[in-house]
């Protein structure tokens, strides 16, 4: 789905997801590893404040990935 959005719209797509090999297989070009399958953009076990901080960091990293030129599939680690 992400790859087709990127192809059709010609705009960068960053995918936040937990299982990186699947993202690489389906052709995602900008990948940010998620926290866990049932909560990719948060970590509720850490309590509300740290959950929010985790999400902010992930979203900031994702925005950074969108603003970064890549030549091939790239995983943006922390």
């Amino acid at each position, binding site marked *: 789905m992400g*790859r087709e959005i990127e192809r059709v719209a010609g705009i960068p797509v960053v995918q936040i997801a937990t299982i990186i090999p699947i993202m690489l297989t389906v052709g995602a070009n900008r990948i940010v590893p998620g926290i866990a399958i049932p909560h990719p953009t948060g970590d509720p076990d850490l309590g509300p404040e740290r959950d929010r901080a985790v999400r902010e960091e992930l979203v900031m990293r994702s925005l950074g990935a969108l603003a970064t030129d890549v030549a091939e599939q790239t995983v943006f680690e922390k």
Partner: protein
Amino acid sequence: MSESNEKKIRVVHYINQFFAGIGGEEKADCEPLSKQEAMGPGMALKAKLAPEAEVVGTVICGDGYYGEHTNDARERCLSLIKAFEPDVVVAGPAFAAGRYGFACGDIASSVTERLGVPALTAMYEENPGVALYAKKTYILPCGDNARGVAEAAGRMAAFAKKLVAGEVKGPARVEGYFPRGVRKNFVHEQPGGERAVEMLLSRLRGEAFRTEYEMPVFNKIPPAPALKDLKNATIALVCSGGIVPMGNPDRIRVSSAESFGIYDISGVSDLTPDKYESIHGGYERAFANRDPDVILPLDVMRAFEKQGVFGKLHDKFYSTTGTGTAVSFAEQFGREIGEELKQSGVDAVILTST
């Protein structure tokens, strides 16, 4: 009753201008016509069909004409074919010829779809006609040039007779045609667990094994250029984690989704569990249903928008469930969402998946 008195299977053969002896590229604009006889590769076909089947007519169209006037060519060829009252239609073989492969695939699939008559063709595995039509008709593999005509004719004749008799029942690789993507249920004499262990042992021993569940092949594309100006960019949120307004108004399936939803979030600054929920059938939803932002980070996106980290959050989000969802549907959703984002002037996407 002697064999000569039995009703023979009526076969109509479709070929292009080249194999009909009309001419090469200079005659590729040849319009549809028919002959009441076997011609060109049809002579080999005729020999292999005998005695129980015969070529009752040949329909011919130039490859250029079929490619450039496809609707017209198809309609005229179909009516010429129908006039011969065939029991089965054989097209080609097209070998590696791309336009001929397209025409053969198109006419064979149309004959079955429109006239209800079984049909088949043959072409080289790399002919683009295979990718276009393998799911719509029977395409038998053949060589990449006309030297393979005798062998191809033999296989096509045998397959045509089997098709008319309703005896093409086994899987594609056994029956000898390119897989159509059709799965048939049957009772295997050996339980699945035993077959899986045997497959694993074969693999460990470095022996050949055949998967019973072929994985799809995914395409890759060159990455889109980066955002030049994040501060003025409009960014959209998309998710395959099944976040929808409470009650799932669009009835998106919990798994094997065949649709996606578009939801207005203008003015929404947080996804709260009284208004949004996860309907995804493939992960533990407790976290998402306490705070949907752990799947779709709207709260943080809205905060960053206010702080001026980026320009604007697109006022709609797009959502489906990515579990057991057919790749073809996922790609279709992507195309439809992509078109809409393009028209809305969205500059980039954050897609979250579970």
